[in-house]
């Protein structure tokens, strides 16, 4: 006869309520761990999404995420020419906030290195990668866009051809992927009026120098496209991402590019470290500390609950001693009950979490490792708390059952 189960069955209502309570506590612990993992993981989604082996940024900056980095577009071709580099393209990423369908639409705009990168590597849950080099986009489901939906950004209209899951920026905004040309035209979109004013200003400036006055064609040019004016640089890019040929040594390539005076390079790991140590560092440590605190407090509460459960049984335990039950029986009763409660509470917490966490605005990433860790903690607490109870139970004299 299993005494632990009999006792639970006898006070099933109370046991169930207590277990659900402890379970919800564990759910919060798991959730906090999940929020932490989600934050760390989200921070790395973009770097992982573009699949770069090497990041080339403006000299002495920690760009492009931790701070601003500006490079001339020509660096793309210089990097592509380095032995060991398979391909290179510009990295375009910026956040925009527009209106769509009457509600604010905040998204990260990520440029893909068309034609090599069409988004095949993205976590697509519906639709397809990009198929043409303009006017298509892959949107994250958190943006609330549907396949085939058309959305106007700048002067062009883009069609959603693919949906990703959990492709978000380190701020938690959903990311939409475009070809890098499209991404840039969204970034540098200027209203017609401001283009017109800028051309007028240029013409006025040219008018005031003798070169402009003697060369009418210069005035002509000044009123035209900026790209046709040799003296004006093209729009700067923030970074160049390079993929290495199979077998190429990242250190070697890094050494070659590092010798150039105008750029700094980071490997994928270095870039991830910059992100974690930089932009999300404080948020990450804040949540980590809170998580540790929460775990400790839950442990204490759970231990107290289990211990109290044993205290309530001291009279029956004295009785068991009176009729000659060996310590093994008494230890078994307390230990099994606390393990049963721990296991059930863990299950309850996990189940509630499964239902609840997807409703959170940001990702709650409960990994199996973290689940195992929580399970381990629950096991340790259950055993520890029952040891306290057992210690108490061992001190009960059998004659306390009489009277």
């Amino acid at each position: 006869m299993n005494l632990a189960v009999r006792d639970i069955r006898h006070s099933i209502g109370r046991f169930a309520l207590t277990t659900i309570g402890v379970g919800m506590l564990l759910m919060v612990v798991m959730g906090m761990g999940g929020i932490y993992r989600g934050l760390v993981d989200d921070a790395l989604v973009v770097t992982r999404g573009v699949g770069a082996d090497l990041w080339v940024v403006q000299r002495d900056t920690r760009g492009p995420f931790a701070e601003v980095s500006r490079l001339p577009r020509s660096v793309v071709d210089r990097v592509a020419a380095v032995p060991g580099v398979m391909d290179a393209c510009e990295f375009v990423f910026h956040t925009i906030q527009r209106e769509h369908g009457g509600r604010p639409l905040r998204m990260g705009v990520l440029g893909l290195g068309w034609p090599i990168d069409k988004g095949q590597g993205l976590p697509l849950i519906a639709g397809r990668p990009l198929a043409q080099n303009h006017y298509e986009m892959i949107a994250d489901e958190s943006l609330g866009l549907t396949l085939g939906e058309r959305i106007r950004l700048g002067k062009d209209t883009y069609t959603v051809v693919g949906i990703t899951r959990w492709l978000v920026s380190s701020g938690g905004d959903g990311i939409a992927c475009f070809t890098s040309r499209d991404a840039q035209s969204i970034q540098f979109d200027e209203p017609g009026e401001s283009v017109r004013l800028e051309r007028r200003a240029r013409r006025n400036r040219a008018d005031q120098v003798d070169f402009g006055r003697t060369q009418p064609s210069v005035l002509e040019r000044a009123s035209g496209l900026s790209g046709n004016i040799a003296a004006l640089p093209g729009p700067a890019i923030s970074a160049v991402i390079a993929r290495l040929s199979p077998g190429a040594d990242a250190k070697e390539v890094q050494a070659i590019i590092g010798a150039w005076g105008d750029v700094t390079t980071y490997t994928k790991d270095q870039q991830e470290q910059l992100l974690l140590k930089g932009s999300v560092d404080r948020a990450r440590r804040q949540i980590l500390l809170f998580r540790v605190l929460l775990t400790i407090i839950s442990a204490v509460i759970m231990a107290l609950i289990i211990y109290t459960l044993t205290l309530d049984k001291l009279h029956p335990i004295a009785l068991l001693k009176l009729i000659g039950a060996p310590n093994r029986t008494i230890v078994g009763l307390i230990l099994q009950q606390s393990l049963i409660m721990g296991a059930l509470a863990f299950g309850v917490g996990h189940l509630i979490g499964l239902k609840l966490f997807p409703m959170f605005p940001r990702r709650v990433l409960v990994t199996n490792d973290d689940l195992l860790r929580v399970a381990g903690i629950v096991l340790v607490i259950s055993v520890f708390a029952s040891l306290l109870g057992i210690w108490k139970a061992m001190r009960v004299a059998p004659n306390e059952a009489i009277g």
Partner: protein
Amino acid sequence: MSEALALEANGLTKVYGTGHTQVVAMRDASLRLHRGEVAALLGPSGAGKSTFLLCVGLINPPTRGRVAIGGRPVLDGPRALVDLRRFRRESVGFVFQKSNLIPFLNAADNVQIVGELVGRPASQARARAMELLEALGVGARARNMPTQLSGGEQQRVTVARALANQPSLILADEPTAALDSKRGRQVMELFRDVAHKHGTGIIVVTHDHRALDVFDTVYQMEDGSLRPATHAGIEASSGPASTS
């Protein structure tokens, strides 16, 4: 001595507390109980009857004196000569004034558990429990929890539990206090039958003088001293003060 005694208590003395709060609850109590013998223990409240039972029941060892059960020395003063708890579950049965059933087990389980504690298979312990409950007239209440039973029913379940392992010694402290005199007498007679049939030694603390004819011997305690009862002693202890 042809046959080992069910119980042999020699010079038991129990002192509670120390200094000026010291109470001598029992002094130099000796008793020899044969197998199959049913003894009544009379005495006013505070005389030390419960103290005596707890000592020979190996629950609360004496300050001085020796206890042997079934011919086996088990206590030498406060020192245990055997594993007391193991000895208790195998050889001693208890019935107390207040029912002492385990609250989270039903009537049958309360009896069955003591069988399982001495290593009987569950089915066998169960069969024995049901048989005893039937014999005590509470077979129909086997599945009821203790709180669902009346005081008398609880007491009979407790008696069944004490009998379950066929111990060599049964100690009952005012077992019939919660029963009417008819039921009380039935329990006493049951004790006698068990004792005579299985050779169990039984000591019953009681105030019910109408049932004294059931017992083989009658002892009396007063101020911690134990001796065979005299007629005058029996008369004295039947006074209204004896309610403990």
